[in-house]
């Protein structure tokens, strides 16, 4: 009799536990879909969709400004100027994003800026995103861009931590040192970085539109 009891009690308990875990799993799946990302680590996130979306709209203003968007074009030719026209000479993206043949970015873009109005701005690693992951900013709505930025399959395989670090990438920061004759993004780099990190750490929510 005693043996029989211990056989049935765990079976009931296991059944109840399965039901409880199923409900939890279902609910957590539902919550995940509310956020733009599924790889947000709890230890660095204090979810706040209102704060997150507000911060992203500041981020969006910067990413769609000429200094950022001109190298994230919808086509395979970079953009130029504050009117986002196609780059003079129509240099092509190439497989690695660094141009082709005698039209590689570094053929004209030196490691640093050079003197003179509207001369080619410089950075040692001047490039577009590669052909297999174009990371297009041009024409993206805030919703589309936010989702693209947090998905490793569309953001250059970046984890959340790498995304945060990317705010200090040298080529990103070059946007605030564009050489003579060019406007800078609408926020300072410090303000941008603060908005960027706030957006991510509050859950990286995508605006509805």
């Amino acid at each position, binding site marked *: 009799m005693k043996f029989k009891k211990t056989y049935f009690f765990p079976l009931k308990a296991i059944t109840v536990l399965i039901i409880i875990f199923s409900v939890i799993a279902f609910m957590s799946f539902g919550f995940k879909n509310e956020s733009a990302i599924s790889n947000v680590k709890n230890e660095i996130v204090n979810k706040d969709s209102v704060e997150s979306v507000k911060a992203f709209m500041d981020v969006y203003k910067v990413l769609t400004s000429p200094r950022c968007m001109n190298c994230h074009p919808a086509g395979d030719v970079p953009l130029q100027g504050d009117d986002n026209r196609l780059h*003079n*000479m*129509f*240099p*092509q993206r190439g497989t690695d994003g660094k141009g*082709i*043949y*005698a*039209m*590689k970015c*570094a*053929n*004209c873009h*030196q*490691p640093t800026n*050079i003197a*003179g109005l*509207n*001369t*080619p701005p410089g950075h040692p690693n001047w490039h577009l995103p590669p052909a297999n992951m174009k990371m297009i900013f041009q024409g993206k709505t805030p919703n589309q861009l936010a989702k693209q930025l947090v998905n490793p399959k569309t953001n250059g395989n970046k984890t959340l931590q790498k995304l945060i670090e990317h705010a200090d990438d040298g080529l990103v920061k070059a946007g605030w040192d564009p050489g003579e004759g060019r406007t800078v993004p609408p926020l300072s780099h410090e303000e941008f970085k603060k908005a960027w990190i706030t957006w991510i750490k509050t859950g990286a929510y995508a605006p509805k539109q």
Partner: protein
Amino acid sequence: MITLNINNKNYNVDVDPETPLLWVLRDTLGLVGTKYGCGIAQCGACTVHLNGQAMRSCVTRVSSVVGRKVVTIEGLSEKGEHPLQKAWIELDVPQCGYCQGGQIMSAAVLIRENKNPTEKDIDNAMAGNICRCGTYLRIRKAIQLAAEIQRKGG
């Protein structure tokens, strides 16, 4: 004093390190095949090779080429026998000739990396070299001929 390796020869030059390479080539060393066109990397007349890559010498600081190999149009071949030079002569490409050194230096990178370029490949690769005489059609034909000469071992 800055030491430069140009066309496989070392030169010691006493110039400001910020001086663009083009000025050193032309004014200091007398290698005047490389031309000044725009001075802001927009026309391609000043194209040289830096470690095998086409560089706009008008925006390249001379200090940045120390320890690297520079090749100008004068050093592309010893006796003018590069396939591009042969093709240029064969098809009588130049009109005024001012841009042609830069055109050839850019085309040399193209046919080194693409042995059989299509017209589209050529147009894409040469879009940064401007010719005021409009010799583009002959340039395109000459590049195809040069690629053919190269494929035949010439």
